[in-house]
């Protein structure tokens, strides 16, 4: 079955890619399977300089989900380009770089740096990381700020830009329309919802950063609703994510309005999550009477 999808700057052999931050730079999971099987790989967030991230504990389990506050730990964009991108480029798959920052200048710096490489196919502009205190989050909750950073990054880079939206907003469609207007080539949604868990013996937050981002199957209904809502109001493609762990979940995201999907938390439960989903996708599409991934995308128009 034809699982191919074409997105701005990307021709994916299948619509499945690991979500940013849940797959490092691919090295660890390459010990489980051949990364060439993936539609694309979204790398862990890159910032201008090396970041050590937040103190530990950085994760906590919740019902059908987890909280994380890694704090964008990464070796900095230069070392990512030097050490990680070349290794990933050996696989027959597309590379998407997740661009993070705490100032407009930092976003521009990182986007420019990736623009210099030949092996990165697209940027995912992370304006929605809830675990960085210096203001990263504001870009993701204020439409004007989101517009500004999107326009700046578009100018700084020739690569297609997928803006990653935060679900921690009153009006997600407004955010989506703002970044579409600013020139975004696509959207990526959703990032995590801000949550907290307490440690009962102390009554204090379990995660050192106090709050963390909620991911996993628990948030899937929110992701589906937001994608469905945004799909009615914007026309750029959407990379959907939030709680995907089966091929049926992928179908639901495609039906809701996504054009490709990313798998995050599920990798931790099952290191083969992405390839298991890719393997199951054809029979799932057949079961629900679709002939290809493109068929799902085309036929939802009639449905909505």
């Amino acid at each position, binding site marked *: 079955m034809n699982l191919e999808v074409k997105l701005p700057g990307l021709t994916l052999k299948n619509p499945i890619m690991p979500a940013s*931050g849940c797959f490092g730079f691919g090295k*660890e999971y390459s010990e489980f399977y051949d990364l060439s099987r993936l539609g694309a790989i979204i790398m862990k967030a890159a910032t201008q300089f090396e970041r050590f991230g937040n103190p530990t504990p950085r994760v906590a389990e919740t019902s059908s*989900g987890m909280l994380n506050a890694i704090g964008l*730990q990464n070796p900095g964009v230069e070392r990512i380009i030097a050490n990680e991108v070349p290794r990933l480029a050996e696989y027959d798959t597309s590379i998407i770089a997740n661009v993070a920052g705490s100032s407009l200048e930092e976003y521009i710096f990182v986007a420019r740096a990736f623009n210099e490489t030949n092996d990165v196919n697209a940027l995912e502009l992370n304006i929605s990381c809830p675990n960085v205190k210096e203001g990263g989050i504001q870009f993701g909750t204020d439409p004007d700020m989101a517009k500004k950073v999107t326009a700046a990054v578009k100018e700084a880079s020739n690569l297609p830009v997928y803006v990653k939206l935060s679900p921690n907003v009153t009006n997600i469609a407004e955010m989506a329309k703002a970044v579409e207007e600013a020139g975004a080539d696509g959207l990526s949604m959703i990032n995590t919802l801000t949550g907290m868990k307490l440690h009962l013996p102390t009554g204090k937050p379990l995660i050192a950063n106090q709050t963390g981002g909620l991911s996993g199957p628990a948030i899937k209904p929110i992701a589906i609703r937001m994608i469905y809502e945004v799909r009615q109001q914007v026309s750029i493609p959407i990379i959907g994510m939030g709680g995907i762990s089966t091929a049926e979940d992928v179908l639901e995201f495609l039906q809701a309005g996504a054009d490709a999907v990313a798998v995050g938390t599920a990798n931790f439960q099952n290191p083969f999550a992405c390839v298991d989903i890719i393997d199951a996708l054809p029979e799932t599409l057949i079961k629900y009477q679709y002939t290809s991934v493109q068929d799902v995308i085309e036929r939802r128009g009639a449905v909505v």
Partner: protein
Amino acid sequence: MKKRHEMKVLSVETIAKETVEMKLYQPEVSQQTVPGQFLHLLVPGFTLRRPISIAKVDRQEGTVTILFKIVGGGTKALAAYQPGMTVDALGPNGNGFSIDDVSEGGRVLLIGGGIGIPPIYHLAKRLSEKNVELVAVLGFQSKDYVFYEEAFKKIAETYVVTNDGSYGHQGFVTHVFPEVGAFDQYFSCGPLPMLRAVTTELQDSKGKVSLEERMGCGVGACMACVLPTVDNSYKKICSDGPVFSAQEVIL
């Protein structure tokens, strides 16, 4: 390529208060494991896998034994497993205790606290195959929690310590250090406060410690389990560790 293993449960036994020993059949894992490595276990109904150290292996039988304390929902569910069922596991994960630098005829101090004792036992077994003298200091909360004393006694000069003095010496593991005599190197695993006390007390000795942290992936990809190092960098407990040189990390 790494695999996801279905490990068959052979037996499940409560060997001390809240402490369960589970024997699993999986020849491949049994062959590959070195002391200090852990399994990353999937418990149905829980999002994250549970890291549990390997307490011993029997390569002939193809078995792997783990020991765990019932602390929350995941370990409670694991304790309810019946022989014949299978557990989904990743592993052996991480880097265990390297014993290449333990010289024949030497003397080694082993310090285990509570549920940190199983990997220390695995190490003791492996060291006992070398010509090395072993001294073990085992700390428990109280008498009801004591396990593996006899097993240790067979291969090591063994001191048992309980916090409340209900069995063996009273106090912390560090309290019996004056009695243990000289040693070339120490190995330790246990709760963080214990490891802090041990590494401080023994700061002039060469030693290795096994550490714990809450994990996401358990394979080195998510950065949940990092630990600062003395050279102003960091290590991942799940993949660089869980065993580190006591001199290398900041507890």
